[in-house]
């Protein structure tokens, strides 16, 4: 029932830092998430794109140096597409995503607490209805646990550096169109 204590402590520490970052980034707010989905406040995208650019370089150094391994999900199209559509609809109604809703609970938001109860029921439904969902989730091609470099038969370095560079360009354009002080007024 429990993983070893060392892993549990590491998880708690990592989560604590993640929670501080989400709260200081103001993405634990309904208004910030909806500001992004209504294309007015670009805080969410700025954070995500920066995280991907920074993360991809370090994680590939670790993985290619055999200090860590990749942990990715299968590109099962029915799962990713229909799951993604449901996720997007739910996200816009709730106004918080799973990680940020837990952070919003930490801030004391009551609607976030109710939303998290809904999330638990959603997860419970997935578990209980697995045998019903399973054939449907296998109804489209599954490319397996494949990365973009593997899928295209190219080198991971090209992709890792390419993604970091493209993400940086995206950020510079974003900052030019939607400067940070516009978002920071909240």
């Amino acid at each position, binding site marked *: 029932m429990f993983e070893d204590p060392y892993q549990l402590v590491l998880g708690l520490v990592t989560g604590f830092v993640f929670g501080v970052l989400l709260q200081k980034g103001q993405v634990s707010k309904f*208004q910030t998430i909806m500001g992004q989905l209504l294309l007015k406040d670009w805080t969410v995208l700025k954070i995500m794109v920066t995280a991907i650019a920074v993360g991809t370089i370090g994680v590939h150094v670790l993985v290619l140096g055999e200090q860590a391994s990749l942990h990715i999900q299968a590109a099962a199209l029915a799962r990713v597409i229909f799951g993604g559509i449901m996720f997007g609809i739910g996200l816009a109604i709730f106004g918080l995503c799973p990680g940020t809703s837990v952070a919003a609970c930490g801030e004391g938001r009551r609607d976030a607490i109710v939303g998290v109860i809904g999330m638990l029921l959603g997860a419970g439904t997935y578990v209980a209805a697995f045998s019903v969902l399973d054939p449907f989730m296998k109804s489209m091609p599954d490319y397996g646990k494949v990365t973009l470099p593997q899928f295209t038969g190219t080198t991971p370095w090209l992709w890792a550096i390419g993604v970091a560079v493209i993400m940086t360009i995206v950020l510079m354009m974003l900052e030019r169109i939607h400067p940070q002080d516009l978002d920071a007024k909240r």
Partner: protein
Amino acid sequence: MGNPLSLKHWSPYLVGAGIGVLSWFSFATADKPIGITTAFEYTTALAESAAAPYLVQSYLAEQTKKGKEPKIDWEWMLVLGVFLGAYVSSKMSGDRMVQERVPPLWRWRFGDKPILRYGGAFAGGFIMMLGARIAQGCTSGHAISGALQLALASWIFAPIIFIVGIATAFLIYGKEGRAHV
């Protein structure tokens, strides 16, 4: 300069870079990607196994086949950590949201009855999490952790959630809603 934790707001670039570096840390120390929703799945699987074992038979068979039995693990503690981290951060900056029952945009569209907002949050949370477990990830697990590992699944998932999320948001609030965020 005072304690940075007492500030309400950090630059999104600083926060994003922090999450990027935190992902190095999680791979280097635990060899795991940051994610949230598997912990919700495991929690309910454990509860349902105890309360109504017949409900979870086919799910558990699949997880055993994959060698991923539900348990209280690294990611479960990570979710707890997110709650505590946000609690401490909001306490230290005085950015508590206990008073506000209904966010301004929602109030503009649906009025200030908390029960309506709670209903929306519940339904939205339910659909979102069911979708996350079908897709096997969320904004953290797919759109950040999966994307930075260059996973094909995640680079399909991330644009879908943004496009559908934007479309749904405009459907609910319209262009006029932009004046209230």
